[in-house]
């Protein structure tokens, strides 16, 4: 039996070489096919936005544009220059910025403090408090839309950027707390104990000891919150429709407005403009983006 094994070694070598080669090719083939599926819409968006309507009607989705024609981008961003009915993204883009920056800041700050207390200043029932906050990650927001609309009305900040800042700050807290808590759990409590023995107080410990080592989780949290708030449509469309609308709402209105002929090139340019900030963040800080995604992905 031993001899039989030996005489077949040569064949085995050959066989394993060929099956491996075949497998590799198959693998790359499938991966590349899927890569095309995923890249296809982005490609179509970009080339369409660079075409004229004439080119769009003549060519297909895949045809290359005749040149770098950024007209539709300009229209999408700044409009055509006539008054009524001329919707364009520029003001809404700024609305979104004005909404995102404070909302990200406040929710990150509150989450950091909460995470700090929940891990380093444990008190009785802190586990339940965490669970209490955590559940906020999961609720379907439809269950709070009605009272929220009324509350914003009573506070006099419905249909305003401030209102949206409040909404996004509040519903960001469960996620930011989750991020910071999970991060601070892994930082040895001895550090904090040592500082307490040295007489450092609550805030001093936070700012001098924890904050300096928190850069990665701050980055993760900011990226997560930025992406979520920038991409939000539900809150934006429910609580803010006119002047104060954020960019996603404006994009949707622009695409839906059935004024004259559908201008797909302008639609695509608008979609790219609305998507570009988060795409840039993804490309530049993909690692942090994915970390946030896998730990906070519970949000839809």
């Amino acid at each position, binding site marked *: 039996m031993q001899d039989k094994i030996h005489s077949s070694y040569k064949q*085995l070598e050959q066989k394993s070489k060929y099956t491996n080669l075949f497998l590799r090719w198959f693998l790359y083939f499938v991966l590349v096919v899927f890569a095309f599926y995923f890249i296809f819409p982005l490609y179509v968006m970009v080339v369409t936005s660079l075409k004229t309507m004439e080119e769009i009607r003549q060519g297909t989705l895949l045809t290359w544009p005749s040149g770098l024609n950024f007209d539709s981008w300009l229209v999408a961003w700044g409009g055509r220059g006539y008054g009524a009915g001329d919707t364009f993204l520029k003001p809404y883009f700024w609305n979104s910025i004005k909404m995102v920056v404070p909302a990200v800041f406040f929710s990150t700050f509150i989450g950091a403090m909460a995470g700090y207390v929940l891990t380093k200043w444990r008190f009785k029932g802190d586990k339940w408090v965490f669970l209490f906050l955590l559940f906020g990650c999961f609720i379907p927001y439809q269950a709070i839309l009605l009272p929220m609309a009324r509350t914003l009305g009573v506070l006099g900040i419905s249909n305003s950027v401030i209102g949206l800042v409040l909404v996004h700050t509040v519903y960001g807290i469960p996620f930011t707390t989750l991020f910071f808590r999970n991060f601070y759990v892994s930082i040895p409590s001895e550090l904090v104990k040592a500082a307490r023995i040295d007489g450092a107080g609550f805030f001093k410990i936070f700012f001098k000891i924890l904050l300096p080592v928190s850069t990665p989780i701050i980055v993760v949290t900011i990226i997560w919150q930025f992406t979520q708030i920038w991409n939000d449509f539900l809150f934006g469309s429910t609580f803010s429709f006119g002047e104060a609308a954020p960019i996603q709402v404006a994009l949707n209105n622009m695409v839906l407005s059935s004024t004259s002929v559908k201008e797909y090139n302008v639609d695509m340019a608008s979609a790219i403009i609305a998507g570009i900030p988060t795409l840039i963040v993804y490309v530049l800080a993909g690692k942090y983006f994915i970390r946030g995604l896998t730990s906070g992905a519970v949000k839809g």
Partner: protein
Amino acid sequence: MKTLKIEELSKNFGSTEVLRKINLEIDEGNFLVLLGPSGCGKSTLLNIIAGLETINEGNVHIDDYNVSKVEPKDRNIAMVFQSYALYPSMNVRENMIFGLKQAKVSKEKIEEQLEKVSKFLQVDALLERKPSQLSGGQRQRVAIGRALVREPRIFLFDEPLSNLDAKLRVEMRREIKKLHQQLKTTVVYVTHDQTEAMSLGTNIAIMNHGVIQQNDTPENIYNKPSNTFVADFIGSPSMNLIKGNLKESSNKVSFVTHGSNIEIPINGYDFKEKSNLDNKEVFFGIRPEHIFFKKSNEEDFEINLRADLSEYIGHEQIMTFNFENQEVLAKFPSTVKIDLSKNTKLFFDLTQISLFDAKTEERI
């Protein structure tokens, strides 16, 4: 015919060279231990033998056939891993027969093998359990069982005992030794525990930085280390290496340290080459256990050294002496009383010494 032969084998991961020109041969039924510090390339070498890593240069032969490009499953080997690597979703029975099933062995044969091996390793009562429901020692047995049922030509072990506690480790070590005595299968066994290596191996290959330093019987590794690395690595505490020079006059060789009048005669030493000895810079090597507090042998060399430190370790104590400002350690029974900071009379057993060239660090 050698069961396993490795020729001029080199391996690198990217730009880091992990194995360099390894040559190894193992006879049928031998138990080869690969011993070396962490990161020296032991696991890599074992993986290459198993076919789990590719080779950059050189060849691996099993029974004189070049298997360098043969798949692991066709090499007729079995391997036991440090983490046991049991399949967590399968129970013990499924774990043990998985390999046979893949090889399409008949049902009756599988059952027969399973029964034989599980009885032999006393895991027959655990067959329906999942690995997570087993103790460390039981997992280890199952892992060995999984290797045994395949009746391989060569057993490969990668630090199989290092996840066990000290007591269990000694037990399992004995069982592996018994196993080998009964089955007489060729074994390659990786460890960084020298006691394990000494007690199990019929041969030990000491590795450092991807190079085999010495491949020899345990006795020779201990008594005749081929360089200072091996001398230092084996033994606990390790061999004293005293720096000094050789002196040769009228065919008598002796060892002196710089600026001292102590002269140790080198009489019965088996030099590899007996020329150019005069004035050669050397390390004089003597193991702590070959330094005595009373004369036991006519040839013993008597010397007076100051005791600086005593470490009590139960049945023994380790004493540190000052030899011309170099530390010399000795191991005595803990019943012996030696005063610190005083000169003590000691006896070196000169039949057990080693000499190394101070430049090349090789044995001379």
